[in-house]
């Protein structure tokens, strides 16, 4: 597109600056966190338990707790989320009353603050279901929290697949199950992987909901019924409650960012592998 006149050039420069700022913001954040946290990062920091309320020692138990909470969250959210997304994309006509009602519920649920999910999870999982402060309570609460995002993004990925696939499958008299398994889900796999990445990002960054459900005991959990402190909760605790804990918080943040990047890479690879496997 051509850009004519001084006003257009100014507008283009303004939009370009805004885009640069958007790109610079996460970069600045990363430089700040890595600059503050990297000097203390060592292999021992990754597996040692914390000492002196987190001022010294490492974050081994927190990494284990975080991964366990994440595993519970994904085990619960993935089948429910993908099932709901498939139902919305394949069984409910777009624009129908059912689609609108379901979409509205998901949007409302997606806008609920995480602290409210924390209180809900505490009441339902910790108290009513008797799971107490545990990895299980925390993971299930996070699953409820990430479901709207997981469903919406997966649904979009499924709807974005070419309608010609459905047309061909119907004309060939293929079963819906076979079509979903062999064609639709693998074709939407990169988009579903993106949904997974966004959900994992949201779950890993969460602290408020976990304070009420997974607790913040710093010891290594023996099972999912034990309480455990997630990395985000550890960062919050060191920053807000422990004098002189800022260094440990920054190093934990570096690990959290690293973990998130690693999971993003794995999910992307998984999506691509599924896409490739489909063609074989």
């Amino acid at each position: 597109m051509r850009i004519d006149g001084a006003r257009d050039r100014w507008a283009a420069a303004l939009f370009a600056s805004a885009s640069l700022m958007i790109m610079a913001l996460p970069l600045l954040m990363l430089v700040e966190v890595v600059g503050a946290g990297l000097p203390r990062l060592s292999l021992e920091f990754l597996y040692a338990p914390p000492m002196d309320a987190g001022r010294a020692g490492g974050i081994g138990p927190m990494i284990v707790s975080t991964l366990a909470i994440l595993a519970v969250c994904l085990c619960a959210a993935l089948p429910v989320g993908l099932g709901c997304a498939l139902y919305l994309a394949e069984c409910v006509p777009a624009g129908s009353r059912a689609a609108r009602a379901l979409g509205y519920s998901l949007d409302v649920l997606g806008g609920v603050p995480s602290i409210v999910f924390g209180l809900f999870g505490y009441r339902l999982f910790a108290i009513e279901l008797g799971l107490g402060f545990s990895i299980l309570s925390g993971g299930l609460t996070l699953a409820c929290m990430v479901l709207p995002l997981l469903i919406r993004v997966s649904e979009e990925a499924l709807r974005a697949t070419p309608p010609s696939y459905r047309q061909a499958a119907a004309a060939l008299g293929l079963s819906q199950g076979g079509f979903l398994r062999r064609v639709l889900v693998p074709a939407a796999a990169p988009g579903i992987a993106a949904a997974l990445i966004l959900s994992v990002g949201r779950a890993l960054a969460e602290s408020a909901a976990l304070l009420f459900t997974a607790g913040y005991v710093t010891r290594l959990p023996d099972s999912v019924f034990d309480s455990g402190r997630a990395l985000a909760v550890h960062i919050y605790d060191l920053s807000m409650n422990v004098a002189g804990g800022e260094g440990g918080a920054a190093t934990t943040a570096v690990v959290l960012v690293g973990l998130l990047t690693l999971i993003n890479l794995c999910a992307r690879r998984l999506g691509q592998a599924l896409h490739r496997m489909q063609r074989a």
Partner: protein
Amino acid sequence: MKACEGAAPAGITLDEVTVRYGAHIAIERASFAVRPGELMALVGPSGCGKTSLLNAINRLSDLIPGCTVTGNIAVGGRDVRAPDTRLTALRRQVGMVFQLPNPFPLSVAENLRFPLREHGVSNRDERDRRTEEALRAVGLWEEVKGRLGQPAQALSGGQQQRLCIARTLALGPEVLLFDEPCSALDPLSAGVIEALITGLKGRYTILLVTHNLPQARRLADTVAVCWVSEGCGCVVESGPCGVLFERAAHPITRAYCGGEVG
């Protein structure tokens, strides 16, 4: 020999068929018959309900919200809208090829093996045999035999269309519905598809929707001319190809087939 085992070609009979989308009538009271092994060309301007008729025959119209079909449609003497009709069996019996090639995002071979597996061909050797037979029947085997594991979408448009025809033939249909199968292809690829359809004549009952009147004249045994009258489609005349192109009874058919309108 047929590409893959199927019964003898089945005839198609449409009697007073009307297709509606909500309150809009796409085509009204269409009646014609295609004898077993015959190729009928369905011609007429855009929007006169030709594709709607095709979709009603294999009941793809069931999937369109608000679409209703009335009248009688029989394939091989059986009412396709009878309550005991199994859609998977009907769509296996009545294959369909669309205007745009629509291979699955699978490998060339898997595009044929997967539907065969879905239709109960559980033996791998049998699937491979039928895949090769169908690819040979559309003249694609020599071109793709070295890259059966490559993505089907890497093939050219014409090859993709032949792959889609092979995928349909592999299931052993009795009737083939072609919905403008050449209109999205370059003239060379269109020529290959046309030659392929000529080769299929007699072994399958074929209903071919086309806007290309010379193509209809070259390929068809019989022709049905559709037209739009007062906002809804109708079949104005049907009969042997030579008769319709040379001494049609209806003035619209004479004008349309003579290239004066449309």
